[in-house]
């Protein structure tokens, strides 16, 4: 269970990005949604330790993560799949999946993770994670990497972006299989209606505060009707 208490983030220039966020995440699939600039990605990066909050605390299964480094949080069970996957000259797909798994994987094991995201392992395993891979390919490798980690908490920052040729249904199946393996929480930042519909809990951020939290039956109708004035919910 992830618990966030009184979490705020103000930029060095004084702009308030997140303002006194209080949140408990104990469901399997949780979506964070909200307009651009509402603080979604910042919240995810604070949980992963990439951004240091101005105040507040974060615990995961009772363990206080607040003062932990990115590495310590990763080792304590936090995974974070980037919105824009990072490219590396000289590091191969096999390398990154092995790093994620925390051990040297056999070819068969690595292939299994790539197959999960619909990539033909033989074509990818020895390729460098560089400019030769398309945005969509990188995104799927990023998801395979999170799968290889299979930690208590996995945060995906807009996992659907750029994977048009692969179906949403496949993406959702990956999340389900990941849950079977980890029994942890999967937190997905998304604007995508189908991902929101699939989530058990939806957190709506607006202007750095939580505008609404609830199950899909509570939140989705409001988003669809525009009651919550959330202009991005219908974006494909």
């Amino acid at each position: 269970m992830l618990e966030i208490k009184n979490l705020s983030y103000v930029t060095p220039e004084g702009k308030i990005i997140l303002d006194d966020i209080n949140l408990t995440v104990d469901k399997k699939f949780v979506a964070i949604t909200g307009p651009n600039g509402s603080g979604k990605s910042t919240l995810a990066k604070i949980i992963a330790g990439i951004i240091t909050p101005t105040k507040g605390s974060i615990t995961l299964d009772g363990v206080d993560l607040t003062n932990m480094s990115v590495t310590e949080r990763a080792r304590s069970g936090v995974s974070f799949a980037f919105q824009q996957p990072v490219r590396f000259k000289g590091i191969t797909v096999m390398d990154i999946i092995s790093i994620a798994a925390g051990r040297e994987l056999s070819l068969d094991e690595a292939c299994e993770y790539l197959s999960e995201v619909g990539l033909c392992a033989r074509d990818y395993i020895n390729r460098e994670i560089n400019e030769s891979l398309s945005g969509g390919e990188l995104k799927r490798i990023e998801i395979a990497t999170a799968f290889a980690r299979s930690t208590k908490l996995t945060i995906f920052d807009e996992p659907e972006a750029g994977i048009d040729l692969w179906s949403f249904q496949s993406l959702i199946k990956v999340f389900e299989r990941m849950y079977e393996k980890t029994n942890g929480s999967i937190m997905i930042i998304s604007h995508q209606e189908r991902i929101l519909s699939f989530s058990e809990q939806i957190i709506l951020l607006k202007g750095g505060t939580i505008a609404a939290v609830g199950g899909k039956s509570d939140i989705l109708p409001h988003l669809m009707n525009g009651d919550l004035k959330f202009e991005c919910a219908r974006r494909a």
Partner: protein
Amino acid sequence: MNGLNISSDKLSMLSKINVMAENLTGAFSLRVDGSPYAKGSSPNVTISAKKDLPGIDIRVKDGTVGEKIHIPVILTQSGIKDLVYNDFYIGENCDIEIVAGCGIHNHGHEDSAHDGIHSFHIGKNSRVYYSEKHYGENAPESGKNIMNPTTIIDIAEGGYMEMDTVQIQGVDNTIRTTKGKLGDKATLKITERIMTDGDQYAETRFEVDLDGEESGTHVISRSVARENSKQLYVSNVNGNNKCSGHTECDAIIMDAASVSAVPKISANSTDASLIHEAAIGKIAGEQLIKLMTLGLTEKEAEDKIINGFIQ
């Protein structure tokens, strides 16, 4: 075991430059501490000592395919200044591999130096894979390890050469010069990987003349400069015919190091197509963070990025 009675410390130094005892059979040449130590020939490859200069001539018969020739050099005594000329005469329609390299173990107070001048004459339609690794190890306060390799390559019509050169540890000062001259439909591919640290200096100079029609070259240099080390990369590709040339210099700079890249391309024919790319920068912060989110420490992430970059 080899039949040459080579001491274990020499074998250990040879292994650092990717040469094992079992490689010293057939056509090979081993040079130790400035003198020829052992050599051999095979039915298709003759290795003979030069009469007027230190070094050897390597002659490969037309049509030789699948042969691997090792010509390592090691220096184990401090203060040696070794200069050697190795000339390769490769016939037509060959497909061979050559493994060279120099390892210096310097535990004395004097500088040790090896200047190897390698000339390749590659016959029509022959393919040559050439790799060389330069490695040094010093005791604290010992003299410097200096290596100045010069490689001169002349490729006849339809010939192909791939050169893979690595220097990642223990060479204090190096000026590496590579010159290529390509005939019709000849191709030269060079990959260089360098890492410097401490107060080391590495200078690398490539000059390729694309004289032949449909000749082509691709020069790739990846380097890492750490601590107070300095690097200079100079490339000069001349397109003198219908040809293609591509040079890439990619460097990671760390600590108080400095790197300069001076890529030059000159087209002397309207059908020459030449590209150069040069990029120097520190390790991207997002790369470190990405690997840290996978559980590596910052130091582990840095090592992984560097090792991958110059592997």
